[in-house]
């Protein structure tokens, strides 16, 4: 079993460096982020006092960028579980360095996603009515149940593999002793403990997968279950899940690149990680195109007038600049960068990922707003521009997420130390054995 003794001769000291020492750069970043979050809190209090009138929302565009953010952030959360759980279950060795930072992404971004629903409510003070007076036929209630389950499961799934690392820090430093001692749950690294831990991680990886799929399916049903034009679509479930994974992988790549640069983790986040994730992103790019194409072609071919109004508004109407920007960001740019082997490198995947994230935010916006702006009856068409309040709170959400992530990475190792060590001590041999097992006449092959 991997050691959980004090860190050895600084072989993985780069991982623990951010926890032990804090430079000026970190304080400056934190201060800037705190300022943005602080501003957002003030603006939020204003919105609470005045009402949602301070937003740009109106009738018929009752939902705007808060709901867009909600769908977008919940989407980002899919990277963590997917990458980590699938790669873990498949015993993909290259996962070792990236599971922790993916799982952290999931948990933290979920908080931001959920808070956007709260921002959108006219009566935040009554949110508990969803518990006191639940109406089980409402997709919004399904959503609350599903997202809560997901948050719980992915928090446990983040915490379990953290235990040995927390114990290691507890044993090797005196910093924040009480915190690490409490969270280590008395971990001693005995054979029995390891067995239980590994079993628990596997079980959680299996549990968390269907929940993750359910989460974005249910988010899509918030729209899909209504009979509104271009919301009422049967492919919305898988379309949203695919889009979520798509933007999630992009978010993971960007996060890894930032961590690598900020904490000097070049040893751990190698070219191969970016290339592999880039290949996954390429697959999702194609999948996104496939889904989007079939969704729009079906609508166009059917040609139902109320649907065509929304369709035309998106493709050639007032939303055309955003729509074509989305196509460029979600398909043209990432495809052009990721398909050629030569450009699927670290800067390439990062640029493609940023493009994908912008494109996926636009996609969410283009799902929410144009349908609402074009009601079925002959009302004046809706116009919606987000107000400074909504923009401030959105900025606050992004800053809040980065801040939470930065703080997390200062308290807990952002790369799983024990898993890296386990890879060195056991992974190499295990992988070799496995490869031999694939081959005919494996037993006759001599050890390498």
């Amino acid at each position, binding site marked *: 079993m991997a050691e959980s003794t004090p860190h050895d001769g600084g072989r993985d000291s780069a991982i623990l460096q951010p926890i032990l020492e804090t430079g000026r750069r970190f304080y400056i970043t934190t201060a800037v982020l705190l300022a943005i979050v602080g501003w957002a809190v003030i603006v939020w209090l204003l919105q609470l006092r*005045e*009402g*949602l*009138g301070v937003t*740009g*929302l*109106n*009738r*018929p*565009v*009752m*939902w705007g960028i808060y709901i867009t953010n909600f769908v977008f952030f919940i989407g980002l959360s899919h990277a963590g579980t997917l990458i980590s759980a699938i790669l873990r279950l498949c015993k993909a060795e290259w996962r070792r360095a990236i599971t922790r930072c993916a799982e952290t992404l999931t948990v933290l971004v979920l908080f931001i996603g959920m808070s956007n*629903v709260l921002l*959108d*409510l*006219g*009566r935040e003070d*009554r*949110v508990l*009515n*969803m518990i*006191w*007076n*639940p*109406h089980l*036929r*409402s*997709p*919004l*209630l399904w959503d*609350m149940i599903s997202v809560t389950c997901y948050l719980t499961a992915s928090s446990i799934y983040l915490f379990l593999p953290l235990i040995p690392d927390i114990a290691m820090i507890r044993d090797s430093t005196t910093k924040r002793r009480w915190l690490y001692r409490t969270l280590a749950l008395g971990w001693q690294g005995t054979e029995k403990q390891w067995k239980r831990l590994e079993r628990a991680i596997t079980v959680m990886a299996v549990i968390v997968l269907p929940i993750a799929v359910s989460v974005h399916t249910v988010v899509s049903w*918030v729209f899909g*279950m*209504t*009979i*509104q034009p271009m919301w009422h679509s049967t492919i919305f479930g898988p379309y949203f899940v695919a889009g979520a994974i798509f933007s999630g992988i992009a978010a993971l790549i960007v996060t890894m690149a930032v961590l690598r640069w900020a904490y000097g983790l070049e040893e751990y986040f190698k070219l191969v990680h970016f290339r592999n994730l880039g290949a996954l992103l390429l697959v999702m790019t194609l999948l996104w195109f496939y889904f989007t194409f079939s969704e729009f072609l079906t609508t166009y071919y059917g040609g139902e007038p109320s649907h065509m109004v929304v369709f035309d508004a998106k493709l050639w109407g007032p939303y055309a600049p955003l729509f074509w920007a989305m196509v460029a960001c979600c398909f043209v740019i990432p495809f052009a960068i990721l398909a050629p082997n030569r450009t699927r490198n670290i800067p390439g995947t990062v640029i493609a990922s940023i493009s994908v994230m912008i494109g996926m935010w636009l996609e969410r916006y283009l799902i929410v707003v144009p349908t*609402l702006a074009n*009601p*079925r*009856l*002959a*009302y*004046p068409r*809706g*116009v919606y521009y987000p107000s400074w309040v909504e923009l401030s709170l959105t900025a606050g959400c992004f800053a809040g997420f980065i801040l939470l992530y930065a703080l997390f990475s200062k308290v807990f190792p952002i790369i799983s130390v024990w898993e890296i060590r386990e890879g060195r001590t056991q992974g190499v041999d295990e992988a070799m054995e496995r490869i031999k097992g694939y081959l005919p006449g494996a037993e006759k092959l001599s050890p390498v």
Partner: protein
Amino acid sequence: MVIDVDKCTGCQACTVACKVENNVPFTEPGQAAMGRVISWMELITTVEGDYPNVRIRYIPRPCMQCDDPPCIKVCPVSATYKNPEGLVAQIYPRCIGCRYCTNACPYTVKYFNWYLPEWPQDMQNYLNPDVAVRPKGVVEKCTFCVQRLQKAEEQAAVENRQLREGDYVPACVESCPSGAMYFGDLDDPNSKVAALADSARAFRLLEELGTEPKVYYLREGEWHGRVNAS
């Protein structure tokens, strides 16, 4: 409810009567331009054709009081529901203001209180005491003047009889100067509205969606019908 589009002059007396009856707040011009007017009864105007052959159509639009309302299904807290009389009702103190119902309604009949409603000082004393003033941040909509129904039912109970036709009409129907609106019990085959709803001119808005609206319209063309018959 039956609305004869042929008789509607587009005067909007119904809209005004509704606002007064139901304590619907005023909207500032700036807010109104943003599309934040609350108008439980709204006149939908369509202009067809090009000059000089232009034709304007008016459709007064209350809540359709659907028999299978898409709005009540989606409410996460059951703040909108179908009451025993078949009206789609709204519970203001329970509504969390998520606006899911407003978005699910294919007729866009639901309104949101963007701010705390306010009236000029002089108007404060003229609010209808039978209708709750809504707090900010909740959804509201046409109730077919349910407060009038309650009063009529109480009166009928005092007089120890069933509700009769004409005991209760909503403010919009009462105020229509051209008599374009009719109100009664569609389930009663002898009622005037049932007869009108059965006419060849009768149609319902977005009937194909299966929402079973309880508001019938009589399409234009009564005049032509008469010419052909004579």
